[in-house]
Structure formats: structure tokens, C-alpha cells
């Protein structure tokens, strides 16, 4: 009998390695294209360095950025998948293992006890999990490490509902302008609208998992995504904030219902290294790696 918890642990550790060392193919292609398209030498040299670095990371299986992020997992557990709460334990073990093996930078800092040195928080919250219960007998795991620099420019605002969609757009423009050169552009921007003050941020982060240039299936939302992408590039932030090259690769939005009195908007910004990797495990322990 296959030890399913062990499969989950090994798979998740591998996902952390893949996400730290290899960009999703469409992100890699976007960066290469941007280097070709950028005319100014300041911007072009930044993109050249980024692309060389991406190749080195992939070739030598080393983290592309020293900031290997705060670890979070998006997990969907099927009703008939053999283990449930043990998945959480396995993911924590995977985090410790990957920290040692890849290696990842120890990034879990306790405010009172200092750096835990293994990327696992002392108080049970890190790595952070987004669990979802689904039909079927499989378990899908997506690892998403996110760097501190780009997390620091995330923003949430309770927009007055009377401002409507225009208020949403205004806030996204303000948030990305405020990020400016700080968080390693070219950026990908996740926007969550609706829910409560916490849910909009959650949705914004989740929106970053959608592949680049794949727009929302709802045409109303897709057209706002495209409009925002065009508008945000008029900010002229450029590669590494030097004013040359693409500022924003893409904008992905997710909408939830909102309270009549509230219009929460969350903006989560990814640096050029939009890192995530996924796999699906079936009840027999077979692993299907997601296209990367």
C-alpha cells in the first residue's frame, strides 16, 4: 500500500523546488519577448540580466531569486482522497525538507523568537494554506512562494460603493503607481473585488495563478482586465523601474459578491518572477505534474 502522506510530502517538496528554480513557460516567454521589444539600453540591460539569470536557475536547479518567499499552498482535496488533515502535516514537512534541499532561504520570522530557520512558523500559520473541498478522489496542490518586496506593495481599500467600477480602476492605478520601481517590475497584477476585507486579498492572490494572457471567462471582467493592462502600462514604470520596457505584463481579476455597503478591492502585485507550480495526486498515489 502506497504511503499517500509521503507522496504528498515528496510532491509538495518538489513543487517548492520547481517554483523557486523554474518560471512558468509563459512568464519566461514574456520576459524574453520584452527584452527583444525594449529599445532603451537601460531597460534592455535589466531584462537581459533577468533572462540570463532565469536560464542559470533552470540549468543548475538553483533559486532564481534569493528571496524564495513566504511559502503558501493552494490545495483542493477530493471527497474520496484517502487522507485529509494529514495533507497539512505533509505540506509542513515538505516545506522543511525543501528549505534544506533546494535550498530555500529561511524566511519565517517570529516577532519574539526570531528566524525559525526552516520556513515554518512557530504559531501554526506558516506555511499558509488555502484549502478547498471538491468532488472526486484527487488532491491538487499548487505551491506559490511570494517574495517580501512584492508583498510589501500589496494594498486593500474599502472603496465607497457609489464609485462603482470606476472606483475599482482608480484604486488599481493608484496601487500600481505607488509600487513604482519598488517591487521588481515588469509586474503581474492580481485584483480581487468583493467579499470582505480579507476575501478580496485572497481572491487577488488567487488571480495570479491564472496563466498570463488568459483572460476571465466572463467578458465583462475580461474587458476590464485588458483595459487596466493598457492603462497601467501608460504609467511608464518600465523594467526595474527605470522607465523602459513593459510595466505590467497582465492584470487578472476575480469578483465575489459584495455586501451592499461595501466595495472591497484587493491588489496583489507579483514581481517579474511570478512563481508557482502544481501537481495532482490520485488516490493510488500517482502524480500528474501540471504543465509548467
Amino acid at each position, binding site marked *: 500500500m502506497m504511503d499517500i502522506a509521503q507522496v504528498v510530502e515528496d510532491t509538495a517538496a518538489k513543487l517548492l523546488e520547481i517554483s523557486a528554480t523554474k518560471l512558468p513557460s509563459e512568464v519566461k516567454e514574456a520576459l524574453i519577448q520584452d527584452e527583444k521589444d525594449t529599445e532603451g539600453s*537601460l531597460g534592455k*540591460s*535589466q531584462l537581459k*540580466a*533577468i533572462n*540570463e*539569470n532565469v536560464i*542559470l*536557475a533552470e540549468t*543548475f536547479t*538553483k*533559486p*532564481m*531569486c*534569493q*528571496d*524564495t518567499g513566504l511559502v503558501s499552498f493552494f490545495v483542493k482535496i477530493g471527497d474520496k482522497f484517502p487522507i485529509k488533515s494529514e495533507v497539512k502535516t505533509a505540506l509542513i514537512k515538505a516545506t522543511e525538507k525543501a528549505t534544506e534541499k533546494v*535550498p*530555500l*532561504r*529561511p*524566511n519565517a*520570522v517570529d516577532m519574539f523568537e*526570531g*528566524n525559525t*530557520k526552516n520556513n515554518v512558523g512557530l504559531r501554526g500559520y506558516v506555511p499558509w494554506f488555502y484549502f478547498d473541498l471538491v468532488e472526486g478522489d484527487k488532491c491538487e496542490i499548487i505551491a506559490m512562494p511570494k517574495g*517580501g*518586496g512584492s508583498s*510589501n506593495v500589496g494594498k486593500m481599500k474599502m472603496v465607497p460603493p457609489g464609485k462603482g467600477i*470606476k472606483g475599482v*480602476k*482608480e484604486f488599481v*492605478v*493608484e496601487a500600481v*503607481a505607488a509600487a*513604482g*520601481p*519598488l*517591487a*521588481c517590475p515588469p509586474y503581474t497584477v492580481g485584483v480581487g473585488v468583493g467579499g470582505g476585507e480579507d476575501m478580496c486579498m485572497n481572491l487577488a492572490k488567487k488571480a495570479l495563478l491564472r496563466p498570463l494572457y488568459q483572460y476571465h471567462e466572463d467578458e465583462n471582467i475580461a474587458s476590464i482586465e485588458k483595459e487596466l493592462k493598457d*492603462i497601467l502600462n*501608460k*504609467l*511608464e*514604470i*518600465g523594467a*526595474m*523601474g*527605470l*522607465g523602459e520596457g513593459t510595466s505590467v505584463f497582465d492584470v487578472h481579476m476575480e469578483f465575489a459578491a459584495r455586501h451592499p455597503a461595501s466595495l472591497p478591492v484587493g491588489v496583489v502585485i507579483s*514581481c*517579474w*518572477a511570478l512563481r508557482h507550480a502544481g501537481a495532482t495526486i490520485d488516490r493510488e498515489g500517482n502524480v500528474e505534474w501540471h504543465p509548467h
Partner: protein
Amino acid sequence: MEYHLTTPLPPEELKKIKIGDVVYITGTVVTARDEAHLKALELHKEGKQPPVDFKGIGLFHCGPVMKKNEQGEWTVVAAGPTTSARMEIFQDEFIKTFQPGIIIGKGGMGARTTKACQEETCIYGYFTGGAALLAADRIKKVKDVFWYEELGMPESLWLFDVENFGPLTITIDTHGGNMTEKRIKKIEENKDKILQNL
């Protein structure tokens, strides 16, 4: 213009450099982030000296990924710059107290750092953010580490020997020039135009 400089960086050389120039550094570079800045300044206030003499060397805003090899020696895995803006709150005091020759980071710094750079003859350069393996490649030796047990891997003072460390795009020079501040002003102007037309 392109400059290849060796530490300790001579002030007369630093004065020649203007924003937009590209610099490569050979010699000593030490990493320091938020915690290390704070601790070094606290020690100084208590009349004590930090374990590294920062004068004329490179101060690198970086929290590297490090690994011990089979001989038990530290090696660099990945070492790109962190966001420098976090250090703006005490960088000017740090420059005045310890007089580093160049600060290496990414994302730029503000008016207080610019003023301190002008007064103390220091410059600030961008290493491409996230290009952690290119940076690691230019680090030839890990000379020492301080405060590791207390502050952990990202926040320790890692003392490196570097060779042709760069390209560093200079965005703050010794003449009060600050390229990032100009860019931020442009972004703000563009934002105002966009918001008017939404």
C-alpha cells in the same frame, strides 16, 4: 560612462560618477538589511564598534541564500538585492556614521539618502532585482559572517570578496542627482493623467 573600481573606493573617483553611469566593483562588499543597520547603529550609540569597518567598501542590501559545503565552509547560492527603500529611515545616519563608498540595492532610495550621499561622498547603484545567480557568480569568496545566530541568514552581515560586481546602474550620485526620484515624479504625473481620463 562605465567605471571599474576597487575598494576602498577613492572619493575623488566617486565624484566623477554621474547618475546613469555603470559601475563594477572589485574588493569587499558586506550585506546589511533592516536588522543589521539597526544593530550597527545601536552599537555605535553605545560607543562600541560593529565587527566590520564599512568605510569605503560596498554596502549590499541583500539577504542571500547560503549553504555550507562538505568542508563546513559557507558558500553563496543566490544573492540578489533586496528593496532598498526599507532602509531609507536610517540610511542617512548609517552613511554619516560608517561612510561606505557605495550602496548596492534595487528600487532606489529617497531624499535623505541622496543628501547623505552628497555630504559624505557615497553613491547608490542598482543591481538587477532578482538576478540572484548572476550576483552570486561575481562573489568570489565568503570572508566572514557576523550576527548569524542572532539575526538569521537573511539579516546577517555577510562579508564577501567580489570581482567585477555589476553592472550597477548608478541612480544616486555625489552631486545630489537621484534618477529614481525623477522616475517616481514621472509615474505620478502619468497617474494623474490616467485618473483624469478614466
